[in-house]
């Protein structure tokens, strides 16, 4: 039996808990920056799961290539989202998500 399999369940449980923590952060807050932090935590859980899958299957090179792509996408997403948050703040003078419910269009 592959010894790497011993790591599957412990890592998986921690990854699921990390995902739930990120989800809770996104659900519980009205602050836009905190919501982005929650999204980041969810992406970290997914990244770790990909790396774990590669480690168990032995395809570490493939999963590392995928993780690098994921990280690039994540950075661009956060950069644009942060730009949107700053624009919302400049418009509403607040970071509260409840203030942007009435949108035009």
């Amino acid at each position, binding site marked *: *039996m*592959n010894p790497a399999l*011993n*790591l*599957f369940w*412990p*890592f998986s449980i*921690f990854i699921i*808990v*990390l995902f*739930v*923590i990120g989800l*809770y*952060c996104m*659900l*519980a*807050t*009205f*602050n836009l*920056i905190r919501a*982005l*932090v929650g999204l*980041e*935590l969810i992406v*970290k859980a997914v990244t*770790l799961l990909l*790396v*774990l899958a*590669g*480690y*168990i*299957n*032995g*395809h*570490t*090179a493939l*999963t*590392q*290539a995928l*993780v*690098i*792509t994921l*990280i*690039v*996408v*994540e*950075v*661009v997403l*956060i*950069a*644009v989202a*942060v*730009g949107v*948050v*700053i*624009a919302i*703040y*400049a*418009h509403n003078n607040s*970071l509260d998500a409840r203030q942007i419910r009435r949108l035009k269009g």
Partner: protein
Amino acid sequence: MFLNMTILVALLLAALWTVMTRSLLRCAIGLAFTSALVAVAMFRLNSPVAAVFELSVCAGLISVLFISTITLTQPITREEMTEYVKERVKRFWYLPFIVVAAGIGLSLLHIQINLTLPAPEAQTNVRSMMWNVRQLDLLGQVIILLTGVFGIIVLFKEAEKK
């Protein structure tokens, strides 16, 4: 195994601190710390290149972005913070029960996961994998980066006009 467990427990504690702390700045620092611990876990899982990316980009660049945003915007008032702390537990008291119920439901489904896949011709060289096998990914990365740059330029142009 003990070291892995220590890293994972520290990772969860860092993530919890990130979510539960009141200050946004501490939240950003906690996220950077979580990223650093994820990078350590990646090193342990035999993925050093991805770990270096995670450490430099996620723990470095994204933290800088968050801290810049926090300094550019007004911090939350004390009253709003107190209201947030009171409400966050009250509004989502049912979340742990949902997670436990979902876990029990999934365990009852008896999902068979085939974990014993061998890797006979698995490539171990990340460089050749990135540049020879996953070329389309690189093209996608460049397009996404350019899209992000144009998006930010458009956003800040609009802000300047106003």
